């Protein structure tokens, strides 16, 4: 089997739209056979990744656009999230030390915990960033 596109969705970088993305990812994960618990976890990771784009890449500029692709690569789910914000400082993307209790700094930790692999980078066009997350489901 080769790579199968499940969907690609584009939406404005607004917090209000995250619930749509969650509903879509949840339904799609179930469609490809993920159990309810795993689907919920994938939703969490994708939601946090999109939140980070809204908050840190676009810094709240809700004219920005987010593209989310969900692919099935022979039992490995792949989520590719693209933004068209200025290139981010890739080294700054890291969770807080969990023992250092303070509000914030959890999103990247959730993502790392849930996904098998994460790859971040700048788009070649000089503007924009991507995050690719994969998770083996069977």
């Amino acid at each position, binding site marked *: 089997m080769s790579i199968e596109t499940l969907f690609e969705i584009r939406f404005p970088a607004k917090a*209000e739209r995250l619930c749509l993305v969650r509903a879509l990812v949840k339904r799609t994960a179930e469609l490809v056979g993920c159990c309810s618990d795993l689907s*919920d976890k994938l939703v969490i990771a994708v939601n946090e990744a999109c939140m980070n784009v809204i908050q840190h890449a676009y810094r709240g500029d809700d004219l920005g656009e987010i593209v989310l692709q969900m692919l099935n690569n022979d039992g490995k789910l792949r989520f590719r999230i693209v933004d068209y914000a200025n290139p981010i400082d890739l080294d700054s993307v890291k969770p807080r030390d969990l023992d250092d209790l303070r509000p914030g700094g*959890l*999103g990247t930790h959730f993502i790392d915990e849930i996904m098998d692999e994460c790859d971040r980078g700048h788009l070649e066009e000089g503007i924009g960033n991507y995050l690719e997350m994969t998770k083996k489901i069977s």
Partner: protein
Amino acid sequence: MNINTLEGEGYTIIGFEGDVDLSCSPDARKSILDVLQADKNLLIDLAKVSYIDSSGVASLVEAYQTAKKQSLKFGLVGVSEAAMSVLKLARLDKVFPIHNSVEEYEQEDA
């Protein structure tokens, strides 16, 4: 998300209902800080929370720390499965005082 605030004997309960996400966590945060600023012990009811993201969890951490600083009581009651799964991911299930119900809190508190 809906917010329900209820006055108990010596504490206030804030109940969140629905999805506590980036689109409404600032409202959740404000409702929490309002209670603590009024110097009241705070219980947060998460029984009807269908989803909570890291921004919602951040408000809980802030509440926990602010209450501690002001020597107020803070606790969670009736944490839904969805919320608990996120608290566990954040390793906060062992940090926050969690009660199954308001009754349980009152007994422990007595």
